[in-house]
């Protein structure tokens, strides 16, 4: 059962990822991105990260992709891009070489590495009997409280920055 879930969700993730980088139309790329995000959410559920799966769907698929679609529609850049020409000569073969080298090294690292672990469950055990949400919340509001407060400042800064960036420049005074 686990294997079936993993294989199906993994196939969805990879198909969506290829769709993002191969679709000519940015709108199709965004929709393929939703597919990938749902696949990753399924993999989160399969690994007992229920809260993160919900947040993944709500924040990523619900908010971020909608923001992408808003910008695509707002700017009218939803026309198909010509992918047949290579504007920078030899870039695609170079990118393919880099991709193959990177995947080779990462897989080799995954297969061959000896994973040394330090103290087990430094910040709360997953299998302690409490629900995933309870454990996550306790860890977030004790060990990681300062980082949590810092993210609130980060969000305020991001909102102010977005407003400043998106504002039209003032008309010059005559």
């Amino acid at each position: 059962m686990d294997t079936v879930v993993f294989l199906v969700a993994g196939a969805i993730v990879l198909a969506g990822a290829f769709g993002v980088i191969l679709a000519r139309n940015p709108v199709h790329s965004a929709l393929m991105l939703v597919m990938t995000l749902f696949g990753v959410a399924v993999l989160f559920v399969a690994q007992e990260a229920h809260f993160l799966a919900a947040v993944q769907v709500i924040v990523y698929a619900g908010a971020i992709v909608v923001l992408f679609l808003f910008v695509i529609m707002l700017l009218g850049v939803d026309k198909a891009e010509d992918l047949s020409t290579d504007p920078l000569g030899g870039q695609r073969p170079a990118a393919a070489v880099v991709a193959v080298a990177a995947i080779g090294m990462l897989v080799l690292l995954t297969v061959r590495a000896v994973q040394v672990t330090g103290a087990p469950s430094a910040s709360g055990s997953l299998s302690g009997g409490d629900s995933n949400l309870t454990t996550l919340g306790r860890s977030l509001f004790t060990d990681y409280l300062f980082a949590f407060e810092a993210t609130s400042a980060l969000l305020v800064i991001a909102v102010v920055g977005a407003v400043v960036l998106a504002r039209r420049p003032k008309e010059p005074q005559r």
Partner: protein
Amino acid sequence: MTVDTSWYLVLAALLFTIGASGLLVRRNPLVMFMCVELMLNAVNLTFVTFARALDDIGGQVVVFFVLVVAAAEVVVGLGIIVAILRRQPGATADDVSLLRG
């Protein structure tokens, strides 16, 4: 046949590489941004996998923070893209080389 930790890690590596090569190849700044999201998701998957493998909630907490930072990054990045494309419509990443030294 049971799903091993390394399966998830290999899948995350594939996802990361697809995102990275898309970032290298594509020209549309919005699609490049989506490729960055793919790479962030690959790293999130790695964190959740290790959280389960090491029986430690810390990995999931990091994913939570990555989600917050990704949301903030998308807001600011799309603001910059909107500002650029309003000035020169149809700009690709090659047209925005003014900051090149």
